[in-house]
Structures are given as structure tokens and as C-alpha cells.
């Protein structure tokens, strides 16, 4: 499931068509605003199929069923593992909260590459909600 809360609403049909046609794009350590639309806010629900806790960016992959019933693989990009370890303690969650096989809903910025989202919050299978929040000033959250 994919929900679009963007100030710039885009068509779900467009996303689905593009997702079918375009393979999972290649990203890398990068400027987040270059690769993600920080004016957008989407939610993606799926089953965690892989976790990768690394620097410079941790990643989850989700098996997602689209509104039209098609199976998709989505990429969830997260902060650096070192940063998650430091700030996760303060925020009350850790990498252990992300369990392969469990359902999760991730909210965040829509990727400029198809089927990707930058992690800002999540609702875990237990119903617990977790958020990403750092000590950065508002302008700098764009750089995370």
C-alpha cells in the first residue's frame, strides 16, 4: 500500500506504471535532497524482506502489494548506522525493532528513483510508532 500526502500530488497510476517499467534504481551515499523529494510525504506498507545496517546509509527492502494487486519491491533508505545507533537510544528504538518477515508501514520522503522512500517514521507490526528526529536545525534535516 502506498499513500501520497504530498503537497505536490502525483498520480498513483503513474507510479505503478513507472514501477513496472523501471528496475530498482541505483542510488548511493548522496545528498538526500538530491535523491528524495522533501516536499513529499508518502507511506508504504509491506513486509520487511531485508535489513542492511551500514554506513553511509542503512536500508530496508519491503515486499509491497500495490493498489492494483501487483507485487513490488520498495527500498527504504535510512540514516547511517552510526547515527542510528547514537540517536536511536535517545528516541527509544534500535535496529532490533526492524524484523525481517514483519509488516511495517514506513512514512517519509518519496525517492526521485522509483519505489524508494527516505525513512522519517514507521508503524511496526506491534502497532508501535517510531520516528526519526535529530538535533539538526530544520534546514539541515534536508541533508541527513
Amino acid at each position, binding site marked *: 500500500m502506498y499513500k501520497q500526502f504530498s503537497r505536490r500530488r502525483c498520480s498513483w497510476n503513474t507510479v505503478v506504471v513507472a514501477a513496472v517499467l523501471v528496475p530498482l534504481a541505483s542510488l548511493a*551515499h548522496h545528498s538526500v535532497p*538530491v535523491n528524495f523529494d522533501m516536499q513529499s510525504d508518502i507511506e508504504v506498507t509491506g513486509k520487511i524482506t531485508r535489513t542492511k545496517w551500514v554506513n553511509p546509509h542503512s*536500508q530496508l527492502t519491503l515486499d509491497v502489494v500495490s493498489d492494483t494487486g501487483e507485487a513490488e519491491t520498495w527500498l527504504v533508505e535510512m540514516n547511517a548506522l552510526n547515527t542510528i545507533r547514537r540517536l536511536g537510544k535517545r528516541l527509544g528504538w534500535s535496529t532490533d525493532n526492524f524484523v525481517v518477515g514483519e509488516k511495517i508501514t514506513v512514512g517519509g520522503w518519496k525517492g526521485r528513483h522509483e519505489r524508494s522512500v527516505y525513512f522519517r517514521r514507521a508503524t511496526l507490526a506491534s502497532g508501535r510508532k517510531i520516528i526519526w528526529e535529530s538535533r539538526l536545525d530544520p534546514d539541515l534535516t534536508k541533508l541527513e
Partner: protein
Amino acid sequence: MAGIRSTAKFSQQSAGVVCALLLATRALAAPDLEAVWILYKAEKFATPELTEMGERLRDGYDFRTADPALRCIPASWTRVYSNPNTPLEIHQEEGAITIQYELFDIVRTIPLIEPNATLPPRQASANFAELGSSLAWYDGNALVVHTDKYGDDTRVLTTIRQWAGLHQSSLMSTVERYVREGDTLHVEITHFDPLIYSQPLVVTYTLDRETEYRVEHYGCDPQDAAINAL
């Protein structure tokens, strides 16, 4: 004659004492920058004044392929300092400044010189040749770092925000000025590159002193840096 020799000897001794005092004063005057620092506030780019070549390179920049970080290589000091949430630690030693950056596990040892002294041979001062060769000195309350020899290729300078695609050529040199104000460290990087910029490009950072976190191992692996490894 004896009087002349005595005067000459006194002069030599006096000069030695004055030199020692000057050095001691300089050593005492060196600003204390030793701490862990971290970026929590947005950097400030002056508007780049690009040459025709600089504009062409910026317009042709493809963030999906042209970012050195794809290979776990820092694009530039500006790119390094623009990375938030990632601490660095400054150590001031006799004759050298060492800065340890968590990002990409960069370690930079910069020879400390007297500005008018004979310069030592320039060699890479960080564990990435792409980050050039640096020399440092104190100027009042500032630590100044001059860097050149960034390499023979032309590559991207920054991948950050609206400035993504600014480049640097083999003619690039930079001057970094570090000034501490309490628990704040102001870093100003001025880029000189006549091939890319018609005016020097100035970028400024305000780092906070970090007392809770330390620099940790980063361990970037190109296989992990690319999402297509999934």
C-alpha cells in the same frame, strides 16, 4: 675587540631569547581547537560565480553516476564538512594538526609551519589522495589550512542540495580558516579554481562542540554504498 665580541655574543643571545619568546608567545597564542565537533546547522554557500566550463560541468552533472561517494571516496573537504550528524575530532600537536573524521574514516595529518619558513615538501595529508596536500599555520585566533594537489582529474566538488554539480579542476586550491568561539567552531572554506569559478567560492560552517559522541569507525564499503547491490 673583546668588547665587540662581547656585544656580538650578547646580540646573538638576545636574538635567541627573542626568538624563543616569539615562539613561546605563538605557541601560547595558538587557539585551543581540541575537541569533538559536529555539524547540526546548515552550511552557507556564497553564490557560485561559474566560468563557462564550470556551468557546462554543472549542467552535465548526473547524481546517479558522478558522485565519488559511490566508491566511498569523499568528493572534497567541502563535501566532508557538509555531512551532518558525523563527528570529527581535532588534535593539536607540536608541529602538526591531526583531524580525525568519522565520515569515510578520514584521518588528516597537516604539517604546522611558520608562515615565512622554508616549506616542507608537499605530500598527501589525508588517507585519500583526492583530498590533496595541506599545510597549516596559526594566524591570530585562527587556524589556517592551505590545500592543493587535489589531483589531475576534474570532478564534482559537492553533491549537496542545490549546489550539487559544482566542480573542481586540477587547479583547485583551498584555504580553510578555523575560529573557535566557546563551544562553537566556525569553519570557512574558500575555493580558488580559475577554470571553474570566476570568483573564489566561499562556504561556511558552524560546528558545535560534541561532548556525548565520539568519532567511531565508519567502514564504508562500495558494495554497501550502492543501493543496486540489493
